[in-house]
Structures are given as structure tokens and as C-alpha cells.
């Protein structure tokens, strides 16, 4: 690009008032989910309140980064920019050890080798200098 900046190679998530702590942690390559102090519910994606009781008394829970593949798909066609040249890629829900599932990509392996139940661990991709997204790779 004209200003010499690298174009992000995937859509950049918008960081907003509710999700800022989550994305700031991702930028440090740390994965967090939330836990309500009032009812104990662990939840993902990030919110400014507990989705069970709207309590604002929650804590940020540092994840182990380990989980298993809950389901996945090998995407072979996606016309949108950022993904047109990435196919085939694996989109998946990973069930974290903390009990919640998150949409992500499985990377660092042959897409054909991904299976449900496969142990995976988090890795981060720096999309911009300020924003990194959590991805998962086969557990070491």
C-alpha cells in the first residue's frame, strides 16, 4: 500500500468498550474468558455483563489455552478478500478446558488431518500491531 503499511491478511475485529480487555489480552498473546461472581457462569464471547443474570460483577479468567475440537469444516470456497487466497482453511469451534466453545481456525497442520475431539492449544496471529486473534494448533 502507498503508505507502506501491510494490509491485514484477515478482517480486523472491532475492539469496543465491552471487548477491549479481551482483545488487549490477545494482543499480549493471552486468552481470557469471563466468569460471573454472582452465579458462577463462565461465558464467551466477551460482554460487559453476565448473560445469565446481567450482573456486572464478573472476573476475567485466564485460560489454559488448551481445548479440543468440537466441530470443524474445511472451507474450500470463500470469495471474500482475506480468505479467497487462504482456502482450504479450517474453521472450527474449539471447546476450551474452561467449558465454553469459541469459533476459531485450526492452523499449523494439514486441514485433512483435523478431527473432532483432537486436542489443540491456542496460538496468536498478529493481524495489526494492536490486534491479535486467537487461533488453535494441534497440542504439542
Amino acid at each position, binding site marked *: 500500500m502507498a503508505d507502506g503499511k501491510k494490509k491485514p491478511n484477515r*478482517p480486523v475485529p472491532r475492539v*469496543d468498550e465491552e471487548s477491549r480487555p479481551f482483545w488487549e489480552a490477545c494482543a499480549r498473546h493471552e486468552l481470557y474468558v469471563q466468569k460471573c461472581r454472582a452465579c458462577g457462569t463462565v461465558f*464467551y464471547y466477551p460482554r460487559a455483563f453476565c448473560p445469565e443474570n446481567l450482573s456486572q460483577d464478573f472476573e476475567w479468567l485466564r485460560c489454559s489455552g488448551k481445548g479440543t475440537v468440537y466441530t470443524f*469444516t*474445511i472451507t474450500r*470456497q*470463500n470469495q*471474500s478478500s482475506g*480468505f479467497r487466497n487462504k482456502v482450504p482453511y479450517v474453521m472450527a469451534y474449539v471447546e476450551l478446558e474452561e467449558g465454553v466453545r469459541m469459533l476459531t481456525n485450526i492452523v499449523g497442520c494439514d486441514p485433512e488431518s483435523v478431527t473432532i475431539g483432537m486436542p489443540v492449544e491456542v496460538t496468536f496471529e498478529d493481524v495489526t500491531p494492536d490486534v491479535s486473534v486467537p487461533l488453535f494448533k494441534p497440542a504439542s
Partner: protein
Amino acid sequence: MSISRKAALAGVYEHPLRWAPHKTQYQIMAESARGALDDAGLSIKDVNGLFTSGVGGMGIIALAEHLNLNPDFLDSNSIGGSSFVSHTAHAAAAIAAGYCDVALILYGSKWSSDRFAVGTGGGGSGDPPEQFEGCYGPTTVGDYALAAQRHMYEFGTTSEQLAEIAVTTRKHASLNPHAKFRDLISVDDVLASREVSSPLHLLDCCMISDGGGALVVTSAERARDLRKKPVYLLSAAESCAHTSAGVRDITDAAAKQSGPKAMARAGVSQSDFDMAMIYDSFTITVCITLESLGFCQKGEGGSYVQNGRIGLGGELPINTDGGGLSSNHPGMRGIFLVIEAVKQLRGECGERQVKDCALAFCHGTGGTLGLRHSGASLVLGV
């Protein structure tokens, strides 16, 4: 207050075109409106309730202007492909409440000729929850594929079983002169078609066409004096399903909430239905929806759809028009579920007519099974 038998479908029209680059979206809607009003024996000046979706935030007002209508009731509820099933229920409720008397439900789209990549384009990444999705490359096909893969893992459902749905639907389309794809296909054809997003093949996916349609809903009393045999709305229910903060079972559909409710409200059960219109964005949509509606046990959808059970002459013929898989799918197809069910209940379906059809179920799914979606259920009868 129950809305059962308070309102009736008095007119329906499915636009015959599947490719309409020479028409505008509003033109398709106006032609459909004229068709459905003619069917009912009413005129545009009788209309005092207007329903639509797919026209943008305030598009319904512009549509009213285009049709020179000043309706007493407007509803552009947009919950994806199921919107028009939902509109039918809302129209019946509005009529029962006295808010309007003749409701016109309209849809028109040129998603095919506009080359809109609805199935394999990307999602947004701004507002939550898209903030946590767009960066991972979700597509409509991929989102449904996530549900299919898990269903196969948990229940042993096979690609052959899902293919059976596409094969049966194509057989029905071969009997519908307006259907876009009418050449018979085999299970092997489905399996040999290219994989778009594993485990879904091209022939597991609905098409994208142009098209549109219209419904006229009015009070039961008024419908009895009109041109066609009234088809009564016996009950309805709506629902939605999403990630549930990270713990939803992806093999359940919103249909699980709305389907049994709609049946209970009508005082009927699964075995009472002569046919069903089940939104078939993908073969897996049909499999999971049939389970969620209780037509079979959870996990048994794959075996349920085999051996002709969902074909004409079977225990529960579904999508007798050829569905979104083979007849038409202009981005959203809820309106066609209702149109075909009404035609079956009137006995107007010719070669594809279900014998002695008296009770039909419609279920629309809007959005995606893998991320979030709406469900809209209707029980229709004569």
C-alpha cells in the same frame, strides 16, 4: 387469545422467473402482488396491512410508496429466510386483533442476477457477535457445515443419507414446471459434486436464484366469500438459537422450541400432518429440522429421510415444489414454504399433489445453524 382459524390464506402467487436481470426487485414484488390478489379475487385497494423483508431498514415505507399504499399495519420483521413465515403469523395476529383486514406479504429478489455471493461470501467483523467471527472466515455454507460435521460425529449420519434429501427434492422438482433444476440426480451425483465446505457438497446446497412471491391473508369470514377455498392458519410459533454464551448444542435447531409449541397450540401432533415444508438451505438443515420438530428422534434424521419416507407417496412428503435445493432460492425462501403448502391444501399441485392433503406444517429457518438463526413454525389446514 388464540389466533386459530381467525385468519386464512386467501391468495398466493409464486413468481415464475428464476432469472430476472431485466426486472427490478419492486417490479417482481408488484407482479407477485397482482398475482396473489387475483388469486384471492381482491384488488390492491383492499390491502391495509403490508409485510416484507429484504428491503433494508425502512424499505417497507418505500415499497408502500411504490405500490401507492397507505396501510394501517406495517411489519418488516427481518429474521432471515424464515421472515415470511413469521409475517404470516404476525398478519393473522394483526387481523385477529382488528389492526388490519387484508394483509399483503411480499418478497422479491435479484440475488442471482446481482451476483450476490450469499453462500460463500464473508461475514462482518464489527458489532458483537460478528467481532468474534468475521476474522475466522465464516461463510453461510461453512456455518451449516459445522453443524453437519458434528451431527455426523455424534450420530453416525452419512453424506449418503444427506444426499438422499437432495435426490428426493430433485424428484419433486421434476414434477414442478417452474423449478429451476428438473433433471433427476442420484446419491452418487451428490457425492461426486465438489465439496464446498466439508462435509457439504455443492448438491447439498440450495441454489441462488432470482424470484419472489406474495401471500394474501385475511379474516376467516372474509376468506369464505373469496375466490379460492380458504386455508386456515391453525397456529404459529417463533424462536431463535445462537451460541448461548458458548455452550449451545450445535445439533439442535431453533425449531425445537417453536415446532412443538405450534403443534400443541393447534392440538395436533407430528403424525397428523399430510405434508411439511421444511426450509432446505442445505440438506443438513432438513435433517436437523426434522429432528428438532420431533418428526423423528434426535440423531435419527439420517435414517428417517431414507427409503422414500419424505418423498411423494411417503409417510411425510416434504418440499414438494422442489425446495431451495432444486426449485428456487432467491436468498430467502420462507414465502415459498407457505405458497406450496397452501397449493397442496387446495389440491392445486397437479402431478405433485399430495393425496387428500388437509394438514400441513411449515418451518422456516433464517440465518445459520452453526452461528445463530431464527425459526418460524406454522400449522395450516383446511
